[in-house]
């Protein structure tokens, strides 16, 4: 499969007051192929949203580029001219669906007019009527009600607004869709509808691939083909969905997985892992493994130097002594 996005050793820091730097993304490497959904999971503050926001190659202060490479469909977006980036990449090659995207709808405009305004920016040659017609066709194709285009945002439910946003941001058939917690403000049934829509877009080949960022692992179980687990600015483990969800090798992934609570047999009465502490302060240089302070299997070696990514059993793990296959299975299926 064609490689659509390659991120290598990307570093993006927030410039704070007093010259301090917050190393939000501190050396991330990943790839995304055609037809693939890559899930990025981690706790709040792990850098997953920051990573998402840099993928277009545009860095908005206080966020600053600090090294690494992003190749988006063959284009080196870090070195590309920013003006052309905005014009030729946003919406066409890469499209974002941020956290509370539905609030981005202009409350004073009908959805159709809003779409026309937005598209004017990207396709100045297209007339308003043509744009609205194109949107109508897309709504029909996805079996969504066309009437939405004639409605004001306040007349729509939260789920419908978010689905509308999904349609708008994929109107130009982007190769990569980056969705950052697209459903965290919705109730479960709307969440299912929005995610079904995103999956359908992929199946219909309207979009080519997706990066799905969330803190909810059960969601990724159903959405993602591969999953990356982020912690304190780096990826600790990256592998296929079933490797990560059902047989994690990094102690952090294991703890993350066993703290999942879903309405399912065997959950009641299960002991949840008790770990304390919080992720390290990203303003300071971190020596050793970033999870060492909280890891139940920590050794002296772990604190000496930061472990590199290494291949274990078909996936990559940033750990000196990853969990063994057997104990992994015991810990997961209880």
């Amino acid at each position, binding site marked *: 499969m064609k490689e659509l996005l390659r991120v290598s050793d990307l570093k993006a820091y927030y410039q704070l007051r007093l010259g301090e730097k917050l190393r939000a993304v501190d050396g991330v490497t990943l790839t995304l192929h055609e037809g693939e959904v890559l899930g990025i999971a981690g706790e709040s503050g792990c850098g997953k949203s920051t990573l998402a926001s840099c993928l277009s190659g545009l860095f908005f202060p206080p966020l600053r580029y600090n090294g690494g490479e992003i190749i988006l469909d063959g284009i080196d977006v870090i070195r590309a001219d920013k003006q052309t980036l905005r014009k030729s990449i946003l919406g066409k090659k890469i499209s974002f669906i941020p956290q509370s995207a539905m609030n981005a709808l202009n409350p004073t405009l009908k959805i159709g007019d809003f779409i026309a305004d937005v598209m004017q920016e990207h396709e100045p040659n297209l007339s308003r009527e043509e744009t609205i017609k194109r949107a109508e066709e897309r709504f029909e194709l996805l079996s969504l009600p066309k009437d939405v285009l004639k409605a004001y945002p306040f007349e729509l439910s939260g789920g419908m607004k978010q689905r509308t946003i999904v349609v708008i941001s994929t109107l130009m058939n982007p190769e990569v869709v980056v969705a950052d917690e697209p459903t965290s403000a919705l109730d479960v049934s709307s969440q299912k509808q929005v995610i079904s829509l995103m999956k359908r877009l992929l199946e219909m080949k309207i979009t080519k691939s997706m990066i799905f960022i969330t803190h909810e692992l059960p969601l990724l179980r159903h959405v993602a083909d591969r999953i990356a687990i982020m912690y304190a600015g780096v990826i600790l483990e990256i592998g296929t969905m079933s490797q990560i969800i059902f047989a994690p090798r990094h102690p952090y992934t294991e703890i993350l997985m066993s*703290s999942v*609570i879903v309405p399912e047999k065997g959950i009641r009465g299960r002991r949840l892992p008790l770990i304390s502490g919080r992720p390290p302060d990203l303003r300071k240089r971190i020596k050793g493994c970033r999870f060492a302070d909280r890891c139940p299997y920590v050794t002296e070696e772990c604190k000496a130097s930061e472990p590199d990514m290494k291949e274990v059993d078909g996936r990559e793990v940033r750990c000196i002594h990853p969990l063994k296959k057997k104990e992994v299975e015991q810990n997961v299926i209880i």
Partner: protein
Amino acid sequence: MSSSNNVILKVKELTKVFSSGRRKVIAVDHVSFDIHKGEIVSLVGQSGSGKTTTAHMILNLLKPTSGNIVFEDKDIKYVNKRAYWQNVQGIFQDPFSSFNQFFVVKKVLRDTFKILDKSFNNKEKDRIIVKALEDVNIDPDDVLEKYPFELSGGQMQRIMIARIFIIKPKLVIADEPTSMIDSILRANILELFEKLRNIQGTSIMFITHDIGLAYYVSDRIFIMHNGKIVEEGDAEQVIMNPNHPYTKGLIEDVPTLHKEWLLTKGS
């Protein structure tokens, strides 16, 4: 279980209508249920179901339009609010906004003593505060002189539970107490609620939208939808064998690890 002397709180036909001008919204619609001594129950509903309004009415922060709330055989309409709050307390969703950001933790916890009838001097208060913080696994020296924004969400929520350990109420209404806490720290908080129940015999009512959480922690579950309780019963029963179509749909819509969830393939 259902013998009446075991019931600590009885809610009868509780109704709340919000009206603005001519428009009336029935937020809570003739809701009835019991909570037993030492029981953990969950009131589960999506946003707009009326669960938070119900919680506020039980906490006596909001007056019902009609219906009764009976705590230990007395209608709370006729009970002095102070006396009621000595027995029924709350924990809210956002630990950061549960604290006044202008005060350090010590001051916040000392203020808690106002609700108690007995008066304490600062030394006695501090001794009880230290004990309560130890109960919730926090090193007092770490937090007492800190402002809320210097602490993590998990620490703050544990301090809110320390407050409960000081007041020792008989019933705690916990409104989404873990929804803003990272999942790997959630277990620490849930464990404390268990401890509260096991040590002090406290009854706990979780108000939540998270069905998995409700299933994990509760003895009984009430499912709320459009202001009404549509299904209630033993947690195992309600979640594994739901009867009401709404409950069935709700549980189907929650992604789990082993059941198929999205059925779009090929469509």
